[in-house]
């Protein structure tokens, strides 16, 4: 029971992070049917921006929560700009060409960004300053650290905010309309180019927040951290039904849980294997993922 509770807590933390990154994959796929392989690198760039900003602010003597809040907002803005620039420079000129060429340029962009991080930030692990949030409490033998509470809290706020944005605002309506039919939505006066840019920006901002939280949680960032997490988050998006926002959240949580429970009860050596076995199993019976790819209302 103690092990079960502890793994549940760990699984929720890990799953939340996967969900945040998975959303970027799923939203971009929903709107232009592109698997944006450079998304994992945006996540890593966010982690680095976070460490730069937080180190600087901690050195200036600001209290930890101010540092975290300001760094989160600024870094999310930076990542949004970065993703929009990538979209404008690399993907937009290729929008009318075949899907394969856009996919390849996304792969190239991923390598370019990862090497850019390596050259500018160095090959070593970079440490986050101190533990921003210390201590924790115990429920039924399971230790819940305040760091986990903060991570889950930020994740929930961001997910609720995203849901509100997509389903309750005019911008969200425009996004959903563009996802359903680009030509038709343009005919009724939606600037689809701007909406696509915005989708990239929102996805990147979420990944950026995830990058900072991963950096704080594990204490360090490295230039290649986006690759493994990117693959897992992408699997989460596929598991939930790529293109489906609710699906990505669910998929992220599921992959996190499966990983942690497989490691806890079977073997940590094979935790990735189990995550992918479940992925293949689900796709065998539900080829479009758990929530389905084509639920028009929830597709962005």
């Amino acid at each position, binding site marked *: 029971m103690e092990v079960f509770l502890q793994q549940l807590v760990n699984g929720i933390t890990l799953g939340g992070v996967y969900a945040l990154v998975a959303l970027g994959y799923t939203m971009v796929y929903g709107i232009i049917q592109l698997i944006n392989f450079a998304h994992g690198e945006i996540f890593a760039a966010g982690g680095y921006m976070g460490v730069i900003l937080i180190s600087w602010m901690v050195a200036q003597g600001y209290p930890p929560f101010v540092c975290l809040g300001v760094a989160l907002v600024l870094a999310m803005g930076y990542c949004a700009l970065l993703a929009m620039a990538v979209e404008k420079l690399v993907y937009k000129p290729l929008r009318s060409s075949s899907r394969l060429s856009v996919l390849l340029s996304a792969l190239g962009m991923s390598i370019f960004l990862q090497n850019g991080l390596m050259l500018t930030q160095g090959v070593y*692990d970079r440490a986050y300053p101190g533990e921003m949030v210390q201590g924790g409490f115990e429920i039924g033998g399971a*230790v819940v650290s305040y760091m986990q509470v903060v991570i889950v809290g930020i994740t929930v706020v961001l997910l609720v905010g995203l849901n509100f944005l997509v389903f309750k605002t005019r911008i969200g309506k425009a996004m959903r309309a563009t996802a359903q039919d680009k030509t038709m939505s343009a005919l009724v006066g939606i600037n689809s180019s701007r909406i696509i840019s915005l989708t990239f920006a929102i996805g990147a901002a979420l990944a950026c927040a995830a990058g900072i939280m991963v950096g704080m949680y594990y204490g360090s960032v490295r230039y290649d951290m986006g690759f493994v997490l990117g693959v897992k988050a992408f699997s989460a998006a596929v598991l939930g039904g790529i293109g489906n926002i609710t699906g990505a959240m669910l998929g992220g949580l599921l992959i996190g849980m499966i990983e942690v429970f497989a490691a806890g009860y079977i073997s940590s050596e094979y935790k990735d294997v189990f995550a992918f076995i479940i992925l293949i199993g689900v796709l065998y019976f539900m080829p479009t993922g758990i929530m389905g790819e084509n639920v028009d209302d929830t597709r962005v």
Partner: protein
Amino acid sequence: MKRALYFLSLLLLVSFVAVGCGGEKKEEKKAEAPKATGIKIGSLSPLTGQYAADGNDIKNGVLAAIEVMNPEMGPLGPVTLQAEDTSCDPRQSVAAANKLINEKVTAVIGAYCSSATIPAAEPLMAAKIFMITPASTNEKVTESGHKFMYRTCGRDDDQSKAAVKFIQEFLKGKTVYLVDDKTTYSQGLADNVEKLAVAAGLKVLGHEHVNQGDKDFSAVLTKVKAAKPDVFYVSLQNSAAAAPMLIQIARMGVKTKILAQDAVYHPQLMELAKKDAEGVFLTFGYTDKETPSYKKFADAYKKLGEPGAYSAYAYDSAVAYLKAVKAAGGTDPVKVKAELDKLDFAGASKQIKYKENGDSGSNYVIQVVKDGKFENFWNPENGQLYKK
């Protein structure tokens, strides 16, 4: 007219290419000029990827050795270094070794990971090129009977003996839990410790394997916490992997003594894990930092940064080879081998004297992290604590 313009521009382009080529060739010749008379040594270590910190330490150690030895080489010099990246990957390591063979190096210092050293040794040995590893501690490295294979660091069978002795005699532990990340080195060492621990009558509560590059150890640590071992033996491939584990151990409130090994030994550990690294025990070769030869090394290393775990061993490996070349009066492998086997000098890390199989003996002691620094703690030879 138009056609003439196109032709002219084409000519211009081609001539630029030709000029470019010509320029490069000249540079190549310049680089080749000292090569013909000097000594070229290679280094193999992970310069990028997760083990980059240790890899660059090795490269810098060799650079420091070249700086110290260059004035002494006389007509044999100058010595140049070709540093290649293995990424700690067996395939890339073999490719890098082949590249060094083509570059006509006469000795290779490296590699770092045992899993990269063992396969890279095959082509190097066939080409009669010396391979002196400063950091690969797996027993198999020197057990293939290669003539030109040397090792400046210790061996894992000795390291595991020191570890188990410490657990039993000093920590008075009855139960052990082990974790490794499945590399030739880390798993080999953990298996050795497990075997010796069982033989010594200790109870092994579990032996988990994690994946290389993992940062989330919560699942393993939950199991460790529930098992309540006296000692938790951490055999991970480097400090960047061990740091998140220490952070999570502290965060989850796992109360156990922690013993790690030589790959985790790196100043980066305290930088990344900060206060959570306090009190961690590690096995590492004993180095007296007050000897004149260590100070000579430290002086030469100064402008390259802070020495890492294996900088001094890489320095000693290169110095040993160059000393042997000097004594042999050339780079003929057979003559150099005869001289290398005769060597007996005070290196920066320890007394360097290679044995028949290429090993140089182990001198593992227990170190502890105290106030953000590594300190000598316990000597398994006599069971005594080091005095401060």
